């Protein structure tokens, strides 16, 4: 019983991690007023780059670094299109998703002689045990003997909470997403803040994707990300665009995955088809948005291109 509990808890943490990172990425972008449907694509490019650069350099840490750079690079066209060119942000995000999947699978086939997936990464990121804390029963092995990306994700949440609520940068970022004209009047560059936010979102989402391919898994193919970017988006909304909200929602969605994976142990899947468990995050998000699980209020200016001098 204790083993099962440990198993479920650590699976929850493992699967929540990429969602936390990508969800936090979405948080920066959307709090600044730019919708980011492209999280899925940004995770994809991160997952791809992490594997290829780990295979090339031999270091998974360099893999993470290059993944972040690739995420920033791919977020750039989204920023240019939706901020500078004032394109529809959803359309631009959709294009980013097309671009990322197309580009990464194209390059995989090109680099590895037409293969559908990359070779396996031998030295992937492994769990790091924190002395003493990891000896605590149940929570020890799941929380304190976790993947490096999990520690990074928790740090990102803590730092982001501090940044957004306690610093001038955070106040400006939120102001740009709620009342861009007021922010501009107060001397904040809306365009600059939004660029920074979208690029941060690319970095974090790509980090989440890298976690999928070189920490949880150890290769990249077309199905590595498989909709996690959209679940991260759901976590962002379910978490009401707040860092700890994202943490909580992502953990809950991770728990849903853990239930489907460990369902056999509990005989859960005997009574509830695993597909129904997989549906759960999406159904809950719809209920949350419809106001049945507490109203979710988006940043006021999200999705609207900023036009100087207009109201």
């Amino acid at each position: 019983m204790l083993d099962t509990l440990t198993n479920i808890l650590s699976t929850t943490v493992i699967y929540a991690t990429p969602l936390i990172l990508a969800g936090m990425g979405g948080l920066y972008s959307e709090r600044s007023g730019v919708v980011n449907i492209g999280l899925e694509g940004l995770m994809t490019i991160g997952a791809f780059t992490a594997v290829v650069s780990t295979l090339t350099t031999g270091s998974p840490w360099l893999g993470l670094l290059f993944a972040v750079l690739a995420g920033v690079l791919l977020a750039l066209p989204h920023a240019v299109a939706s901020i500078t060119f004032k394109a529809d942000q959803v359309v631009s995000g959709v294009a980013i998703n097309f671009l990322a999947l197309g580009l990464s699978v194209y390059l995989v086939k090109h680099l590895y002689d037409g293969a559908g997936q990359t070779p396996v990464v031998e030295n992937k990121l492994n769990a790091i045990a924190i002395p003493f804390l990891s000896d605590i029963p149940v929570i020890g092995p799941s929380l304190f003997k976790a993947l490096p990306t999990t520690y990074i994700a928790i740090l990102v949440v803590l730092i982001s909470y501090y940044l957004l609520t306690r610093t001038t940068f955070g106040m400006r970022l939120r102001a740009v997403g709620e009342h861009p004209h007021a922010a501009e009047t107060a001397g904040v560059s809306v365009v600059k803040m939004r660029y920074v936010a979208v690029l941060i979102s690319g970095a974090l989402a790509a980090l989440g994707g890298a976690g999928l391919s070189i920490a949880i898994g150890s290769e990249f193919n077309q199905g590595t990300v498989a909709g996690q970017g959209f679940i991260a988006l759901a976590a962002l909304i379910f978490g009401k665009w707040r860092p700890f909200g994202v943490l909580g929602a992502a953990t809950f969605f991770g728990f849903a995955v853990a239930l489907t994976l460990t369902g056999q142990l509990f005989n859960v899947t005997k009574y509830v088809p695993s597909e129904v468990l997989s549906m759960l995050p999406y159904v809950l998000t719809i209920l949350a948005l419809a106001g049945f699980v507490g109203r979710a209020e988006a940043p006021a200016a999200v999705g609207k291109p900023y036009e100087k001098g207009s109201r």
Partner: protein
Amino acid sequence: MKVLSRINSQSTFITSLLSILLGMLIGAIMMVVAGYDPIAAYNALFVSALVQPYDLGETLRTITPLILTGLAVALAFRTGLFNIGVEGQFIVGQLVAIIVGLKLNLPPVLHAVVAVIAGGLAGAVWGLVPGLLKATRGVHEVIISIMMNFIALYLSNALVFHWMSNGADSTPKIMDSASLRIDAVSQMFGGARLHFGLILAILAAFVMYVLVWRTRLGYELRAVGHNPLAAEYAGMSVKRNIILSMMFSGTFAGLAGAGEALGTSGYLAIQPAFTGIGFDGIAVALLGASTPLGVVLASVLFGILTYGGGNMQFEAGVPFEVIRVVFAAIILFVAANVTGRLLGKFSRNKGGDKRA
């Protein structure tokens, strides 16, 4: 909403054409960088999509659902709505059409008609959910639609696996009475899987034209898309039009799914991931400036690129996915009106920019 209607008004035939060329240029650059010959690749693509009767038939088969999903996205665009849920509406259209094709016992023709209508209705119901929530609770349709896509995917897989396949990966074939194949036509094209859905798709384009531009309802749909406040002030019900628009849009998507299920495959398999046909509809609608004729033309192009791209991989060795990048580039160029801006730069010397 404003941004969407601006896309429609900005896109002209010339800017669309330039976006296509620029997109294909990006694809060519990617091929050159990776050491492939772009001219040979594009040549293989177009030749293998169009020359042999079988390939031509398969290209037409590829175009068919794109027209319908493109119309679905375009119709919603006209009301200022972004129906990113076409993919899910397509999936439930497939699902319900297959259920009718397998489980109901009806005479030929009538069986197919009922199955197609059922598929369309399923799409309408799937579109109703985001429409209703947008109209009554003010929730953005994009988010609900994305969630509905995943629910459709898992629902379809659950029903196929637990109910219709006896534990296999796919359902048995539907009854012949529900099939949209026309054997004589198929034989004309060397056994290609093209089917009656193509006629349905072209009819749907006419229906959309008449509905949106020739009826009072269509006028209201467009008015809401242009300026919901003014439409409300003029006595139109914005809520009602949002709901209707999403339902019509879902119907087109559901019909696309029904056509694929009853015409192309004849069965339904467990899908590990989305089909992508619904998402391609977004690209088609954007490129086609959300007009029925534009959608048909854009579908022809994307159909050729998609089907020919698969052959390009065999014949020229260039991975198919370069075509997905070309699609992405075209979407970005159209959405950001890149070519319009370029043209504006050239003509500014003569006419001058009115906004400046």
